[in-house]
């Protein structure tokens, strides 16, 4: 792992908000908003692996999709605000504010790996067609060069170049995810957003794919934003971890610090739920949260976690707590645990 905290910045996300309006009523007007992502700020440096964890519905995937600016296609009414600034090819590009035309030239540097390897590959295209698609878009390689590059990429991700004429349905889940990785690698990106890349795979395949991704990171010096709900996977691969709850970042810091010394009560509860493969430590204290995640349509005022927080005070209902630095590079959004 390449833990160079002082390398140059790659991505700055500032005050990102993603709100989905809900329409209803007789005249189909806006009746509410789902605040899927509510004012988050973080950054990713070059050659850094950032893990993003949180339970289902906390906005992790939405962040990933906002970072490649594809939310508008599925939900044309989505309200995006804030800044997503990439430092690519010596230039700054804002994926929210700049035009699609300007963004397009930078898209080769930001690629994505998807959660479901069964849905993320077009079933009507061969593997060669799938992997060469970004090459056709972003390079002016000839057909022969593309074919060579596809073979090389398949070899890199542990598949045989001869398999390039096959269709996705002829592969297993792990092999398909490797095809997805090869597609993401095709244009030598700076950042790969991995949206739960292993959660659809079984455990032995998970390890293979994770190790493959680490090896590739060592070889090509990319950054990863690794979105997952499996904490042990994230701790294994990440330099830094971001913990999200209901559209907000509650804790952010070096992987070691967050994993072994969590400070925010939510992170503590989340980490206590990780199963330990060590019977001698079975008496570990398990924090069980009461209640369910609140409806994002109707978020609690102030700290979003206060309805389930064991440490909640009346003052928690007043303002959304901001991230404060508790130790070197360790940010916690909780005024109580200070």
């Amino acid at each position, binding site marked *: 792992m390449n833990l160079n905290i002082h390398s140059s910045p790659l991505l700055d996300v500032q005050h990102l908000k993603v709100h989905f309006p809900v329409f209803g009523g007789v005249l189909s007007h806006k009746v509410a908003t789902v605040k899927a992502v509510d004012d988050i700020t973080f950054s990713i440096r070059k050659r850094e692996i950032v893990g993003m964890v949180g339970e289902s519905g906390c906005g992790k995937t939405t962040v990933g*999709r906002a970072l*490649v600016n*594809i939310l508008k*296609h*599925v939900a*044309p*009414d989505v309200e995006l605000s804030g800044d997503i600034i990439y430092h690519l090819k010596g230039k700054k590009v804002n994926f929210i504010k700049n035009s699609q035309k300007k*963004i*397009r030239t930078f*898209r*080769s540097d*930001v*690629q*994505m790996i*998807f*959660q*479901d390897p069964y*849905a*993320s*590959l*077009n*079933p*009507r295209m*061969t593997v060669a067609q799938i992997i060469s*698609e*970004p090459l056709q*878009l*972003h390079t002016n390689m000839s057909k022969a060069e593309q074919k060579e590059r596809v073979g090389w990429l398949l070899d890199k991700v542990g598949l045989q170049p001869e398999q390039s*004429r*096959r*269709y996705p*349905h*002829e592969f297993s889940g792990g092999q398909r995810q490797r095809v*997805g990785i090869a*597609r993401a690698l095709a*244009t030598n990106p700076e950042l790969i957003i991995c949206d739960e890349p292993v959660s659809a795979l079984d455990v032995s395949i998970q390890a293979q794919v994770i190790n493959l991704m680490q090896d590739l990171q060592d070889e090509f010096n990319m950054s990863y934003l690794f979105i997952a709900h499996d904490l042990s996977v994230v701790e294994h691969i990440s330099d830094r971890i971001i913990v999200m709850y209901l559209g907000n970042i509650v804790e952010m810091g070096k992987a070691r610090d967050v994993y072994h010394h969590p400070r925010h009560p939510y992170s503590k509860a989340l980490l206590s739920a990780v199963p330990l493969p060590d019977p001698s430590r079975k008496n570990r204290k398990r924090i069980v949260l009461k209640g369910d995640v609140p409806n994002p349509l109707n978020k609690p005022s102030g700290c979003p976690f206060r309805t389930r927080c064991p440490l909640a005070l009346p003052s928690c209902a007043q303002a959304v707590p901001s991230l404060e630095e508790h130790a070197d590079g360790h940010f916690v959004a909780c005024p109580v645990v200070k």
Partner: protein
Amino acid sequence: MKWPKLFKKHIYDREEISLSIYRKRWQKFKTMKRGYYSFVILITLYIISFFLPFLINNRALVVKYEDQLYFPVIQGFIQGNTFGQDVPGETNYRLLKQTWDETDSPNWLIMPPYPYSPYEDITVEGNKMFDPPNSEHWLGTDNTGRDVFARLCYAFNISISFALLLTVLNYIIGILIGGSMGYFGGKFDLFFQRIIEIWSSMPILYVIIILVSIMKPSFLLLIGIYTIVNWISMTYLMRAEFYREKAKDYVAAALSMGQSDFKVMFKHILPNSLVPVITYFPFAVVMGILALVGLDYLGFGMPPPTPSWGQMLDVGLSNITKWWMVFAPVTAQFLTLLCIVFIGEGVREAFDPKVYSRLR
């Protein structure tokens, strides 16, 4: 020792070539004997029907007259006195052949296999009204002395061409509009949904009657009128398909690498949305054929004397005692539609993911 090698090669071949889903479905369709043979028969007949002027025609294929060759089928109208025949207007080639054969003339001509035209009526010498089926007129003649078999064959070509062209046009418009509605969604979708609702409440039959009484009906005009209304049914299907497919991750992947909307729609989503298009196609063709028959029957279709099944049916029903005039178009329609429905059934089964679900 020869066959194990062959067997091995066969296995290697299967390993090497991965079939796309559509190739697999085509192979499965081929195993549906009823549908596949209907398809082969219909396609063959349709292709043959483009060469009907060389097969069923009252003009000779080749005429050799005084050391000069004539090709009346291709050249068209040739005056009778060109060949020394004493008739007003066009040459009567059957008569000419008869005369030359009888007189042992050095001139000769070759007639098409079935030497009657769908247009030649009682004004041509030797034609009779209501001639029952015989060795010359296989399906008899109609109320104006035209050969029923010739008209039937020409009408087959017109019917199928009409239905195919109509369906393809409807599909192109329906896929473009329905696909855009599903893909872009939002206000665009809402706007077009309202337009379609208004548009689809238009009474098609009255529109056709009015338009046909103002304008001179023609093949393209009828297709145009039908297309104005019929594209709507395809938009419903395509809108739903595109809506479903655009939420899948492979579309997100294509978008995130910066693929244009047009490419995403037609390179990624469309190939995955073709199932309703293909399975619906034969039935849309059936509807197209019946639409033309209906219009012709009511007298709002192709301008006379264009051969058409609907017009033949109309004439046949008003002369119901001459059974062959009803029997011929009804049987032809029945067999054609049966073939197409068999094809549709075969296609549906070929697209069925379950292997053993054939109805017996």
